[in-house]
């Protein structure tokens, strides 16, 4: 996956982690749309064309699966990032690439590659 010119939605409720992730993506040429709440993620999806998404699983105590559903409907590739090592997604999201925090830039890239079927986003 090439990041250059891609718009990537980041849903992450921990601002410090979100900022670092944003930097990681921006330094690879991506434009980042950073949101910390699910409502904002839904609003962003309704208004802006995005190429890929990275979703924190537990956002302020709620699961981000509704956002994952919207992304699936729009056929936008996405991955999950989670702090729960043993998290098990609902059946429809079992195949979604998931990276465990803390993750490296390489893990992030590899997961996004898998999500987008190795093509460019």
């Amino acid at each position, binding site marked *: 996956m090439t990041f250059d010119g891609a718009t990537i939605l980041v849903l992450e409720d*921990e601002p410090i*982690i979100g900022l*670092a992730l944003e930097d*990681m993506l921006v330094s690879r040429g991506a434009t980042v749309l950073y949101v*910390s709440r699910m409502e904002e993620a839904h609003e962003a999806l309704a208004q802006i064309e995005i190429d890929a998404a990275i979703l924190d699983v537990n956002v302020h105590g709620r699961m981000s699966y509704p956002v994952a559903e919207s992304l699936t409907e729009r056929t936008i590739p996405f991955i999950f990032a989670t702090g729960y090592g043993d998290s098990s997604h609902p059946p429809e999201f079992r195949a979604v690439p998931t990276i*465990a*925090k803390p993750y490296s830039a390489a893990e992030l890239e590899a997961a996004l590659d898998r999500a987008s079927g190795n093509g460019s986003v």
Partner: protein
Amino acid sequence: MTAPSTIDFEALFGASPNPYVLVAPDLRIEAMNEAYLAATLRTRDELVGKTMFEAFPSDPESDSYKLLYASFQRVLETGKRDELALIRYDISLPSGEIEQRYWSATHTPMLDEDGKVAFIMQHTVDVTELQQLRQIASEAGRAARTETDVYRRAHAVQEANQTLVAETQQLRTLFEQAPGFVAVLDGPEQKFIMANAAYRRLVGDRNIIGKTVSEALPEVVDQGFIRLLETVRTTGEPFIGRGVRVFLKAEDSDQLEERVLDFIYQPIVARAGETAAGVFVQGHDVTEQYRAEEHQKLLINELNHRVKNTLSIVQALAMQSFSDGNDPAIARQTFDARLNALSAAHNLLTLQNWEGAGLVETVRASVSATAGANVSRFTIEGPEIPLPAQTAVSLAMAVHELCTNAIKHGALSNDSGTVDVRWTAEDLGPGLVSLAIVWTENGGPPVQVPERRGFGTRLIERGLSAELRSQVTMDFRPEGLQCIIVAKLSPAE
């Protein structure tokens, strides 16, 4: 001779040559026949309405008293006939003299419609003559040998009975007080014939004795236990269950309550090869232990999550501190200071079991951790508001970045500048508070608007606005930075 059309039982009772007396459960004498009056040398008026022990007093510490009392109690408890093969029970003669008497007594319960003991009928035989025969025997030698043997045997049987009764009572007490639950189920119909206190507590103190399992505990029918019991009884193979969940009706309620049990179903087999007569149930309620283990698993999982999250924050702080172009020595200092601030925030949270931290202490701790002795140049004022854990960490890190900025470029970069941190809170209804935090620096060197937005500024601007649903304005006034955070937040519970 023609048979009478109806038999007059009262007359029969009265005319019987055997002495009978009828007592109520409180041992009050209700009725007796003539033979009884003759045997005890009493009149009816002397006896009716008195208790057995009022009518025939004896020392409560004596064997006579204890034996008789215990026999009545056994009948009342078991609803079954009890026999006293031999009991010495002296009675006072009309002359006032006390005469030594020996008796053999049978206590037969008369049950009411509910199966409870309504009366106890005592059939008593004066065997004092045997005692006299024994004396004669000792004088007359062999001739009276038989009678002596009868007496000895009766005496021995009675002693053995007493021992057995005491042992039975001891076992019964052990069974009743055993910390684990114990019950005995009889026959293919699985009828409760015994259940100890722990078992009765488990099933909400329901009346289960004499009932089948499906009658006594209807809620377990569909939970597989009845089939399991039947398998144990027919195969003779015990069943050991560990951590088995069962849903039982709570006391005085139709609500089902989950209990977790360790138990064994042990077939009761009299002789090898025979089908089990019943099933012995024994076990422990391990619900609390099980819940504690579940809770511990949850806690460990949560701890893992927090550690991972904290590591991610540390990773992010490292990335920000060591980003390209920063002087490595300064980057290292910046990183150390950020770790220190994060650690201070965690200390606060640990004090409250990670449920949250107060706004005042969060600001103070962060300022102290970063500004050190310069904390005296701060004025910190505002109402205490409980913050959720994550919000407290974000706020602490934001305050750290503001402090660092003040030390490097702002009011704390000279010897005289001051920082004023104050906030007001407004209740917006249930679970929502509007908070306005104003950070004002004064007395520092003239402020220059930074060319580049550093991590600190970005964290304050975006991080806090994300975390606290807020708006942040950074006003780089020449006389000192003013940062205003207006936030809506849900205070911690």
